[in-house]
């Protein structure tokens, strides 16, 4: 299986070889990392949804940027790409298609969560 | 500042180019110390030297000492006006053959 760059279209929800490497690096901290990521994301996602509905451009940019970064770091490449899309739109203050985009993110996050938990 | 040497027979010719001052110290010394075999007389060719200072005079004295002191055979040739003048002020014609 080939490695895929961030932002590219990916077939997998998680880049498996990369995350296995990360697991090896983190060793017994891997569980903590996954839990931290999931908690952090589950706290931020509802706030992101609210910010989209309020069309709060600054908050929306900040949250999507943060989530994009942390998702990239655990190699959730599709999720990170979706969040980048949100970030770009929020930065450009174009909120028309954002609510639809968020539904995709919710869905993708649940898939990633399931796959991550399976690794523990 | 550049030093070039050539040997013809038992004569070593050292050509000095540019400003002859302290920066030439090591190179000038090497010029006569490293080509020593069978050299009996020395020629310092000043045709391309533009200027010399008191440390250059010192270097000439060192060469003279190396070449045998009072019995040394050292000729200083083709000096320009400035170079000639400095040698004359110091009365170096009493120690060297200046041509």
């Amino acid at each position: 299986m080939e490695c895929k760059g961030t932002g590219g279209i990916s077939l997998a929800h998680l880049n498996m070889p990369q995350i296995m490497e990360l697991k090896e690096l983190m060793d017994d901290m891997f569980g903590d990392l996954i839990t931290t990521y999931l908690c952090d994301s589950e706290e931020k996602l509802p706030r992101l949804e609210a910010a989209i509905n309020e069309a709060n451009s600054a908050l929306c940019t900040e949250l999507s940027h943060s989530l994009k970064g942390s998702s990239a770091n655990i190699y959730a490449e599709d999720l990170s790409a979706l969040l980048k899309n949100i970030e770009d739109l929020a930065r450009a203050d174009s909120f028309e298609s954002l609510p639809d985009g968020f539904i995709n993110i919710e869905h993708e996050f649940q898939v990633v969560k399931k796959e991550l938990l399976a690794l523990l | 500042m550049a030093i070039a040497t050539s040997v013809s027979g038992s004569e070593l010719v050292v050509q000095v180019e540019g400003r002859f001052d302290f920066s030439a110290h090591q190179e000038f010394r090497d010029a006569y110390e490293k080509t020593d075999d069978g050299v009996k007389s020395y020629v310092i060719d000043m045709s391309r030297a533009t200027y010399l200072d008191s440390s250059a005079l010192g270097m000439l004295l060192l060469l003279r000492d190396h070449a045998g002191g009072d019995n040394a055979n050292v000729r200083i040739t083709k000096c320009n006006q400035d170079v000639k003048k400095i040698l004359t002020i110091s009365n170096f014609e009493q120690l060297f053959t200046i041509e």
Partner: protein
Amino acid sequence: MVDSPLNILIADDNKSDRLILAAIVKKMGHHVCFAEDGLQAVAQFNEQKPDIILLDVMMPNMNGQEAALIIKSSVGENMVPIIFLTSLQDATDLAKCLDSGGDDFLTKPYNKIILQAKINAFSRMTKMHITLQHQRDLISEHNEHMVNEQEVARAVFDNVTHSGCLNLPNLKYLLSPFSVFNGDVLLAARKPSGSMHILLGDFTGHGLPAAIGAMPLAEIFYGMTAKGFLMEDILREINSKLKNILPIGYFCCVCMLNLNFRKEQIEVWMGGLPDFYLLRHDTKKVDKIASTHLPLGVLSSQGFDCKTQRFSLRREDRLYMWSDGIIESRNDEGDLFGEERLMDIFNANKVQDNLFDEIVNRLNEFTGESGKDDDTTLLEVRMVEESEVGEVNIDLSSGMITGPTDWNMRYTLRGDTLKTFNPLPVMLGILSDVPALHGLSGQLYTLMSELFSNAFEHGVLGLSSELKKDAKGFAEYYAQREEAMKSMGEGSVTFEFDHTPTSEGGRLALMVIDSGGGFDYQGKQDNQFNDQGYSGRGIPLIMSICDSLEYLGNGNTVKVTLSWSAKGLEE
């Protein structure tokens, strides 16, 4: 895993990102500390003094770029590398990170190998930076230390080399060293006879190595001048000293003068210095006097030539002497000041009193901002009446008022010794043990010198004093003197000193006996020793010093007496 663990600050608002970074850094063996926003990052920087900072760009409260600016402005000259953490892709944004003081960036997702390589690279740079700082501080500390030492040594040096009489009104000078120490020396001292010795020297190079030779030179100059030695003797001594102590290739270009106020004459020895100028007061004509010898310290004693040149110097005539630093001064364009510019100043001069300042000003204008690259020294000597420079100041040792008062000494010089040796310093040294006579050493020197040359030249060599009536005669006289010296065989001059105590102090009688045929002094007695009768014998001068003078025998013996009073000393 690493020789010396670093302290690394991780500033990222995302906890999971911090965990990953911490895992990578710890795996390398370094210590970590954390910050969750820009404000915390600045606070942690101040508290933890990290060696490297990993700084997220977008953070709440204060973003990474602001934090970087604050941190970088407070590190001073220390090196604290900042690596920006970013998922920014835009080149302009990345460049902005570096502009705000970042040293590098790392993009998400974090790559372990790349981050570790960057940390290693910055660790090397930091170490090198610290080493350089340390070495720089060490160098600057050493330099400071050295300059301090030089300043102290300089004070000693100045005491030795500047103990003379450069402050007399007939001298103006400029000494402008290139570094703390001056490779140029300028010395002036009065002789017991009232004349003045002046020496301008330029050692090879500059700074300490050049200055160090000036110490023995000055010692010999001052010591021998005070004892009444002739210029030739002093030069010979200095040359032999320098030849012994200086490495080959190092020497001292010198111009030495004997300025005789009474005879209005200078005696010059010059080796290796540029021409000096003699400016005539009345005609404003400039004569150039050229170097005729090799510098001091080049030839061995056997080869050394101390022949001097003599020139008459009338009152208010001036001499200008300089080291080559003057003529070879350069302006911003690299042109030499040169002799032509110097000559122009002389030609343009209206008031001779201003000439010295005109030269100095012109030189300063010329060199301007370009600074100098050699020691520069300039001296003006003006011929004046002796009274203008004052009496020769000789220290009277307090307490010992009378010293040895009852003694007799006979000193005879014969043959070649008579031709070549100057006995005056030795004799003056013995006379100077009598403090009262020490105070008169100037006059005694003159007295003995006149009597000695009469005895030697008129007595032993048989030269006629009649010749010395005019300048032409003088030349002839000296020519004859040379000849007579060559053909002279046996001959002698004897000095007999007899010192006796008196109720007031003491009395010195001096007899000078020569081996010559004498002369008819009887006929001259009536003339009261006026100058016409005894031309060139310096009799009026002798009479002005002594209480009595009489010729004895066939005229080959002269006796003078001189009394002194202890009372006069106490005043």
